[in-house]
């Protein structure tokens, strides 16, 4: 898996050993999407639709996820907007700008190349803060170790 990050975007590219039609189903069918994303969505994905659902991690069902579907091109492209990091049920995230999540499917030898891009963090308060944090360079090496710890567990 390849990862590219900046303050504004996270990009992931992965090759899956499955046909494009299969990968498309897993992403564009709300029930199948929920299986691996771990959310129980009420309704089907459709362009312009807002779909909500509860996270299905035991103990985290209080978190509601909401996505607004932006574009669907069968077996090729799917995108939605949402509030990343919207985990505090007491906070109204609706005034905050949303990030854009894009799934791009392409044929690859032996399967499907999937690219996931989440962008727009620079416009949300989260990244506005990250800008300020960048000025503070203390403890960066300690943090790198933490990140290594996270990465190596997967």
């Amino acid at each position, binding site marked *: 898996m390849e*990862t590219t990050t900046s303050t504004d975007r996270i990009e992931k590219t992965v090759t899956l050993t499955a046909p494009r039609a299969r990968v498309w189903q897993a992403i564009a069918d709300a029930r*199948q999407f929920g299986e*691996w994303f771990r959310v129980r969505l009420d309704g089907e994905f459709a362009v312009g639709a807002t779909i909500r659902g509860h996270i299905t991690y035991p103990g985290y069902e209080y978190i509601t996820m909401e996505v607004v579907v932006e574009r669907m091109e069968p077996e090729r492209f799917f995108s939605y907007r949402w509030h990343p*990091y919207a985990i505090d049920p007491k906070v109204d995230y609706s005034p905050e700008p949303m990030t854009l999540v894009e799934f791009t499917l392409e044929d690859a030898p032996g399967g499907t190349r999937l690219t996931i891009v989440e962008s727009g963090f620079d416009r949300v308060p989260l990244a506005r*803060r990250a800008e300020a*944090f960048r*000025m*503070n360079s203390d*403890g960066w090496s300690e943090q790198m170790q933490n990140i290594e710890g*996270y990465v190596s567990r997967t």
Partner: protein
Amino acid sequence: MSRARSAAVAKLHDSAPVFAALGDETRLQIVARLCTEGPLSITRLSEGAGVTRQAITKHLNALADAGLAKNARSGREQIWKLETRRLEMARRCLDQISDQWDSAINRLRAFVER
């Protein structure tokens, strides 16, 4: 959910007050100034801030409540400085969102390749 992942979610949750505290433009400016200029007095922080000393004090107390700043008395002046540990934790959040995608992609792989 794996233990590592639930720990990551718990950490995200812990950072929520940090983000709430930083969701205000004036507080963000205070944090930025303490980052670049080091510990400062309320008087210095009020200069050019466009808000009253009382307002600055209120914002500093909000930052202190979130564990982002602390005050140390120096003679008659109160000097404020950053608590960097909490900021580091908050900065890690983008990496955690990135990690969450990694976990989700791994589950997607298992889902479509089975």
